[in-house]
């Protein structure tokens, strides 16, 4: 299949278009600016609409409207801008609408920096906005996987009527790799008979809503959403394992961090230290069972979560491992990317100490 060399942020745009997304609402923020620029150029060519909103808040509410009208729609931002979108994401989840939200993470808190970070893990996976909900969170680690997951993200959103977040970081957004867009098949999806397209005489009005003033009705809505989540957990959890078969230490890492860790694992192997990797591809739902299963194996002595944060995913790793083996953490934050040498040193420390 034909491959082209493209930048991560632009790949997101092309993958979205290939998946049938024709509406994009965004607001400028570094390091994701190539994505709205790509959509501004490409969407009019495809008969779609690119609109630069007056704020991230407006952008996500335009997504809310467009999704309610039945369209495949996307917005993107980076950490501080994603914080602003959280109110809208909560409404979208509460009203059970599909959309894809891209977060090309940078260092935080506050205005933070513009270098890559992974410190939005809690915000992305635990809900982010108010109320009981989760977006489905996808964490690609290569440009090809970025393309594949963006395309699949639209299907997941439509299949479960739930927002999907593609969680990348500034490194992934800015790097170039060969990519092919031929892989998208598309799932069989239910018709969007709930969309606000104009009430025809044969049906009652369609109402997109997340307000239920009667607490029983609200609880029913939330229980319905959480029933869907059980299906998502049963069918959509995905992770990659690398050299875990005889590993003494298993590292947990996702996205850009997992790329660095893979190199470290090969170097450790050359030095006789057996290390493996579990790389969650879905951060929500998290592959808890995978961690539990590997933790039960006698050859696995310890886990190490490596992140570009002060330790966020490590909490889910601990839930998965559930006390069976020690779980360690190593991370840098604020836009600093852990170096292979320091990760290797951390591995040796754990290998020597256990």
């Amino acid at each position, binding site marked *: 299949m034909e491959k082209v060399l493209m930048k991560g942020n632009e790949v997101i745009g092309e993958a979205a278009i290939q998946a049938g997304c024709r509406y994009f*609402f965004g607001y400028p923020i570094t390091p994701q600016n190539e994505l709205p620029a790509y959509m501004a150029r490409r969407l009019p060519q495809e008969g779609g*609409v690119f609109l630069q909103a*007056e704020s991230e808040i*407006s952008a996500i*509410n335009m997504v809310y409207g467009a999704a*309610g009208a039945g369209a495949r*729609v996307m917005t993107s931002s980076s950490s501080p801008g994603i914080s602003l979108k959280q109110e809208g994401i909560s409404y979208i989840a509460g009203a059970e609408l599909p959309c894809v939200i891209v977060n090309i993470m940078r260092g935080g808190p506050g205005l933070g920096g513009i270098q890559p970070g992974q410190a939005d893990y809690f915000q992305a996976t635990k809900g982010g906005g108010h109320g009981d909900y989760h977006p489905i969170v996808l964490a690609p680690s290569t440009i090809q996987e970025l393309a594949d997951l963006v395309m699949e993200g639209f299907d997941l959103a439509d299949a479960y009527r739930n927002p999907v977040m593609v969680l990348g970081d500034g490194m992934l957004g800015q790097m170039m790799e060969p990519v092919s867009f031929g892989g998208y098949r598309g799932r069989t999806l239910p018709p969007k008979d709930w969309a606000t397209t*104009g009430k025809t005489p044969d049906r009652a*009005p369609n109402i997109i*809503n997340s307000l239920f003033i009667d607490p029983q009705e609200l609880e029913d809505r939330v229980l319905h959403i959480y029933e869907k989540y059980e299906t998502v957990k049963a069918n959509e959890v995905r992770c990659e394992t690398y050299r875990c078969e005889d590993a003494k230490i298993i590292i947990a890492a996702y996205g850009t961090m997992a790329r660095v860790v893979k190199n470290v694992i090969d170097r450790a192997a050359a030095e006789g230290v057996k290390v493996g990797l579990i790389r969650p591809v879905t951060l929500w739902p998290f592959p808890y069972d995978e961690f539990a299963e590997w933790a039960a194996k006698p050859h696995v002595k310890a886990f190490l979560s490596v992140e570009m944060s002060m330790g966020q995913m490590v909490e889910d790793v601990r839930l998965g491992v559930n006390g069976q083996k020690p779980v360690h953490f190593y991370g840098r934050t604020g836009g600093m990317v852990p170096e292979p040498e320091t990760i290797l040193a951390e591995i040796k420390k754990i290998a020597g100490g256990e």
Partner: protein
Amino acid sequence: MAVVFDKPRALTDTPFHYCPGCTHGIVHRLVAEVIDELDIQEKTIGIAPVGCAVFAYNYFDCDMHEAAHGRAPAVATGIKRVLPDNVVFTYQGDGDLASIGTAEIVHAATRGEKITTIFINNAIYGMTGGQMAPTTLPGQVTTTSPYGRDTEVAGHPVRVSEMLSTLDGAAHIERVSVHDVPHIIKAKKAIKKAFTCQIEGKGFSLVEVLSTCPSNWGMTPQEAMDWVRDNMIPYYPLGVKKEVEA
């Protein structure tokens, strides 16, 4: 027996929850009559606000979308960009539109978004129990301006229609009142003009309706109607503020 007065088709049978003397009911009816007369019920999508009209999605018999506080024009933009041949309207109060949603309404207007906004200005937050609104008059007593709105502290009321009329994307901006029958008739004409303006693709249209809140103003329905005439209209002059011909 001949029917001489009926409920518009574009209203459902759900009883309004509004207080006695509140003019939301009048304005809902005017909007529904206009939808009927223009025969656009099947292509109309309404956006309900946060505020007293939050349940508007139960009252209009057309597809409806409930927005977050202040965000109705952004939601309407998303819908209209996907469905340019449909008719999209927002129904918003003064806290929703002129306070938390100021950015959304200004930018929807300046983009010339082909939507219609019905803006209910009753100079107070109704749903939350009578707090000061951006449109509360100087000296007006509310729960958060208990000594009367002091413009030195709380600033001045916003004249939304005049502000929006400066924007090139705004095609029809008009302020009306519903405190008596002649004004109600004029208000309906304005609403019809605003919807027609959207259908003809001229740009953004808004009708500001001076309205009552007898419960939170602490007045009888008639006193409230008189208060609109005597206090609101002098501060918020009625009339067409902007009109773009084809």
